[in-house]
């Protein structure tokens, strides 16, 4: 514990308050105008561009079908808001099931991928042995095969395992595109952690595994959370495997279920589609905001937990 704090700075006692408000230290000498130009204006611009499509989707989801096609007055506002589409989505489709399936698959496959890639990332970034380079390279190279065709041979494997129409088909295949990604991501983070920290622990009699579990992994928490975020999001949005491997409406995931049941031939039901898009993303975004906060504070937390 003492050792870990000392890694942040030679003087843990002094470090405490500074870590807590590091960037505020900078802000002391700033005037509001400086901060506005440096932070608020670019931030607002980014927010506007990022959020406009969401505003549009939200507005669309409250419009009746005929108002949707009416551009004679401002399309940016809704005159007669209706909850019809949300109601329809939640009661007449299997959306709640899809949401549950999507969350289940995303969480389990993310956990599996993280378990594998934390170990693999540590091994490839930290340990020296014959073939590490080529294995790291090999893990990555498989990534270069585009999924637009990879799904065909993969269906053989799924068939042989009798996993068609089963959420396990997704839980087991999603790691194939999550692991290479997370492993490499974490390799980057493990490399960023000074080697001396672990060597010091080894000198103090810790085993290699202890050094990994107690020093390297806690220090890489921001990286692990970032990897988790990506993995979760990629699974949450995955479309192709979910389309191919699942058949029954009750086992489908959001992206596939929504498009299959809300797009009828050449007529789109925009209100419902957009309602589904929002319901499928905003709760996750809220969840994320807590996670991001946690890992932005990750270093401080990691140092304290030691």
């Amino acid at each position: 514990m003492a050792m870990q704090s000392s890694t942040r700075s030679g003087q843990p006692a002094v470090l405490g308050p500074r870590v807590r408000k590091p960037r505020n230290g900078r802000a002391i000498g700033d005037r509001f105008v400086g901060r506005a130009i440096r932070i608020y204006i670019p931030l607002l611009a980014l927010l506007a561009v990022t959020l406009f499509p969401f505003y549009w989707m939200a507005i669309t989801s409250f419009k009746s079908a005929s108002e949707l096609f009416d551009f004679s007055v401002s399309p940016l506002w809704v005159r007669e808001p209706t909850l019809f589409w949300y109601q329809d989505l939640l009661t007449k489709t299997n959306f709640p099931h899809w949401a549950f399936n999507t969350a289940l698959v995303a969480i389990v496959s993310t956990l599996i991928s993280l378990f594998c890639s934390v170990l693999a990332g540590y091994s490839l970034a930290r340990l020296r042995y014959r073939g590490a380079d080529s294995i790291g390279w090999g893990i990555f190279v498989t990534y270069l095969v585009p999924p637009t065709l990879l799904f065909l041979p993969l269906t053989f494997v799924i068939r042989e395992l009798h996993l068609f129409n089963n959420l396990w088909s997704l839980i087991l295949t999603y790691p194939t595109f999550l692991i290479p990604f997370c492993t490499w991501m974490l390799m980057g983070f493990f490399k960023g952690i000074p080697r001396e920290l672990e060597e010091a622990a080894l000198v103090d009699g810790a085993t290699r595994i202890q050094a990994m579990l107690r020093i390297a992994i806690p220090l890489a928490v921001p990286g692990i959370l970032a990897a988790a975020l990506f993995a979760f999001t990629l699974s949450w949005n995955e479309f192709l495997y979910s389309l191919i491997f699942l058949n029954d409406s009750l086992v489908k995931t959001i992206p596939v279920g929504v498009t299959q049941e809300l797009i009828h031939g050449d007529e789109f039901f925009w209100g419902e589609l957009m309602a589904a898009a929002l319901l499928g993303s905003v709760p996750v975004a809220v969840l994320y905001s807590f996670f991001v906060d946690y890992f932005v504070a990750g270093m401080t937390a990691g140092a304290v937990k030691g």
Partner: protein
Amino acid sequence: MAQSSKRAKSGWSRRKFLQTAGVAVATIAFPEIIISCGPQSNPTPAAVIPKARKGASIRLLQWTSFVKQADDEFKRQAAEWGAANGVTVAIETVTGDQLQPKTAAAVEASSGPDIIQMQYAWPQLYTNSCVDLTNDVNILIGKLGKPDPVNEAYCKVDGVWRAMPYTIVPNAWSYRTDYFGQAGVSSFPATWDEFTIAAGKLKTTGKPISQTDGHAYGDSLTMWNPVLWGFGGKEVNADGKTVAINSQETRNAIKWAQGAVKAGFVVHPEWLDPDNNQAYHADRISATLNGASIYIREKVEFHHYTDVTNNAPMPSGPKGTFAMNLIFNHAVMKWSPDVETARAMLLHLMDKDQYMKWTTIAGGYNAGPFDAFHNDPVFTTDPKLKAFQDVIAPGKWPGWPAAPSKKTAQSQTQFIVADMFAKALANGGTGDIEAAVAAAETSLKAIFERP
């Protein structure tokens, strides 16, 4: 006698099938394939009605129809039949875009739904995965009369019915009678030349006649193939080998299109299938070529322009009247453990009374693919729907006059004909005709001359 010839035939198909399976097994070493072909290897005597096996389960995969109620009715009928015969039936509907990769995956894995909807030339693409349905189609022909020639061209591969004709989604022009009246056009043009004149007049109303020339799965094919044929152009000769796009007739068709665009016909290379529907519902255009979905949705849901909407068949070119419609058929897949049950179910769904119940609910979006359906009252109770029946007879398939094949499927899905027109119609109809024809010829040669 009939018995023995039938046996010879199924022997042939069985041998061919085992060959294929053998190759597959040798390469992939998945012996299940042989087991899955069990039911097919019992030759059924000619014109014997297939029986459902109690306890079987049948999964059918097809696209999500525009008319939700029609999908519901289809599912209801299937479930009703399932309950009566002790069969578990599951109907899965997916969008058109999704049906293709799902089918491809099933074919590659030799596993999946028992029945799959075949769109256009899929029986040609997946011939070896589709069970011979000759016996069952013959039963239907006995009851319902001659099948529609386009469905037949698609379903019958090398003389064997690989799919059962299911439906036609006719494509005709939906147009606004009020704007046409304003522009002084009394009826929808009957020829492409009149079409140009009408487009010029409609331009003055601010609501043009519009259509896609982009990569729309349905609408750009149903538009530009008939135009090409109407002026005598064709992609390939009837032999299905010799590329024939580089002709004066093709140039005439393109020149007509350029003239129409210069006059006021608006083409949208960015439009996909839903876009013209939306533009029509939003009162932005006065006419567009589409399935009956625009008219039906106006009639059933929006009620804005129902009274001022009418429908008209395809105009004629100097070489005749042509149309193209969406053609869907059902194939029973060879990996199904209950091929006979699947065939029995399809036959039941094609039963005249059942089928007409379904087309009635589809409200004119679907037409039956046999003679018996030609007097389907759904197209006469609302006279405005008659146009959708009129486009069935002049209907052809992409690649015509060549028979449907893998090659025609490739040229269709690469949008070669539509792209040729789109290139020539760029910048207000002033694109380079020669360059457009040359590019189409290169692409077509790549397809048809590929071994």
